[in-house]
């Protein structure tokens, strides 16, 4: 009862502040100042999927601030370790602090699902750089949630297309990790592939011994394998498949898109294909600027982080000073970003025709852009 009352009190506070802040402190004098929050797994096993996007957002802010010296916009980082339970207090904190005008994130779908009603009650606009679960926009819409990436159903269809058209596979073995990300993604891939799926297996998070899966793959003799899941399990799975002499193409979703995949998989990882709704940026100065700023090439979702921050900065430059202004501006936004044409439909999604899915290949342990997967 105590916890329930506390949660209720927090929600009430959050929504109260949300409504009062439309005339809040950041806006009254019309001064160009405020905070943008970014929340995600800044530490932990999956942080290599998130940190580059935060650097991308920082770069956008730095470049913008050099041109808009009269403004004082701050990017505040919140580490959730990707854990919904840790994301909820972070969301409450930002929602109740009037100085926050927008949120970049959540980086993962689970934490986004757990927090979007908190932000929704406070009227605080979210732009996610990498939360791709389909239900976030397709089933349970939120007025404040937007994302600059395509969702998993689109990615699943692209993966199926890649497997059938590019790999030319006739028999695909589909494996997933039984969790909220891997299972629906693999289900979508299977649905699109139809008869091309020869067999499948469901594994577990934190599993290391995949010998039963390897036996199943061995007996069904596929000409390609798809895995929906994350790095920690994909690395030993791939190693055991290769050790068993199974050398057919291995394709994984964006859960494997992080610099740690090559490190964890070692030699077995070579040639693996990883798809991602994130775009490699080779034109312009973004890659150079990013490298000069962070000392590393743009990693996972770096350009998406840059795009998300740019939308907020454009809103502020346009004179938006309240959460309401920002939300209205973002809803009507329609500009060419680094990664794609950035405009949101009523669910907060990028139009499917503007979504770009890329296939990356592991070469010498690094993720190298291989080709764009045509969605049409």
């Amino acid at each position, binding site marked *: 009862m105590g916890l329930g009352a506390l949660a209720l009190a927090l929600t009430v506070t959050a929504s109260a502040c949300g409504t009062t802040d439309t005339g809040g402190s950041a806006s009254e004098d019309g001064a160009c100042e405020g905070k943008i929050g970014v929340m995600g797994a800044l530490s932990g*096993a999956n942080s*290599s999927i998130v940190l580059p996007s935060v650097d991308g957002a920082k770069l956008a802010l730095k470049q913008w601030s050099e041109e808009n010296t009269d403004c004082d916009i701050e990017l505040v980082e919140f580490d959730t370790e990707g854990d919904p339970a840790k994301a909820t207090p972070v969301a409450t904190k930002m929602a109740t602090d009037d100085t926050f005008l927008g949120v970049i994130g959540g980086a993962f779908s689970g934490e986004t699902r757990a927090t979007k009603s908190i932000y929704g009650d406070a009227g605080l606009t979210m732009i996610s750089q990498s939360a791709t679960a389909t239900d976030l926009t397709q089933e349970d819409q939120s007025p404040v949630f937007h994302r600059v990436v395509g969702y998993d159903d689109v990615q699943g269809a692209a993966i199926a297309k890649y497997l059938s058209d590019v790999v030319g596979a006739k028999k695909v073995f589909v494996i997933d990790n039984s969790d909220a990300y891997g299972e629906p993604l693999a289900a979508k891939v299977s649905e699109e592939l139809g008869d091309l799926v020869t067999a499948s297996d469901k594994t*577990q998070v934190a599993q290391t011994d995949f010998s039963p899966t390897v*036996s199943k793959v061995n007996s069904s003799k596929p000409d390609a394998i798809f895995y929906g899941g994350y790095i920690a399990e994909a690395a030993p799975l791939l*190693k055991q498949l290769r050790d068993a002499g199974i050398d057919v193409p291995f394709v994984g979703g964006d859960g494997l898109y992080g610099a740690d995949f090559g490190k*964890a*998989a070692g*030699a077995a990882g070579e040639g693996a294909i990883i798809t991602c709704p994130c775009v490699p940026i080779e034109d312009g100065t973004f890659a150079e600027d990013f490298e000069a700023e962070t000392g590393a090439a743009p990693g996972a979702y770096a350009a998406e982080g840059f795009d998300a921050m740019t939308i907020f900065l454009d809103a502020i430059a346009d004179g938006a000073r309240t959460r309401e202004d920002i939300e209205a501006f973002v809803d009507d936004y329609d500009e060419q970003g680094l990664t794609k044409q950035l405009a949101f439909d009523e669910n907060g999604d990028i139009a499917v025709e503007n979504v770009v899915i890329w296939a990356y290949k592991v070469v010498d342990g690094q993720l190298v852009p291989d080709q764009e997967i045509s969605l049409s």
Partner: protein
Amino acid sequence: MDFNALIDGLGGHTLDGLTRGSIYALVALGYTMVYGVLRLINFAHSEVFMVGTWTVLGVYTVLGADSESAMPMVIFATLTALVAAALASASVALAVERIAYRPLRKKNAPPLIFLITAIGCSLVLVEIFGHVLKVFFGAPFGRAPVNVPSPIQTHTLLTIGDVRITNVQVFIILGAVLMMVALDLFVNRSRLGRGVRAVAQDPDTAALMGVNQDRVIMLVFILGGAMAGVAGLLFTINFDITKFDIGFIIGIKAFTAAVLGGIGNLRGALVGGLLLGIVEVYASAVFSSNWADVTAFIVLVLVLMFRPTGLLGESLGKARA
């Protein structure tokens, strides 16, 4: 459900199960010996195993052993890793006993205090590898999975019918069984082993008969730790990977294996480990891999319903242990 898949590949699945179970069994020895002597579930034992896997990574890195290494180097690196991992794991197990458990024993702390201390030690060790060492030394420490080089390359030794037997499987099963036979002989035949059995049976009488109880307890932690270190080597040879929390699942499974076989019973750990491994692999074959745990724990519950002391009973102290 696909019973044909199980029956068609029965030989291969059994071999996979034995490989998986061998590692469970080796780790289970540590739980079972400590329980036999102290009636304590040493939850920090899973991290003793984890330290073993990291030691193997360290030895390979220092020696520069990898998949390209020549045969003499492979043998040298593997033996060095074996000794180093056993020593490192034994040292950690001993350190946990000296730092955490002994002071509690001197004060006659209730069993619950030991239990929570064990869980605390486990978390401390996990965070040392996941956080503290990263702060001081950076990668490869931290929370990301790390690739361990593999001087021993997997290749097929022989094929019987459809069953492919690899060098790694033979190495793991033989290695684990040899270690367990050696430990069994040590406990049952040697003078020090008699001391262990005496303390397990009746600590007070053993003390009256001149057995140094503290020394026996140290010995038990060292032996259990060394076995976990060897398990760490066998695990990395098979999977080429380690992680700060790699011990968690293995630890739970090994503890389960110990209970299944009869905790406190050395041969029970072997039987429980192998049985658990085989049940998991069979369940994965019949259903899908995410049914392994459910089925394994149903088997555990069923066994305990009819034999509450496990398959072979709790008996480190008894002569037949």
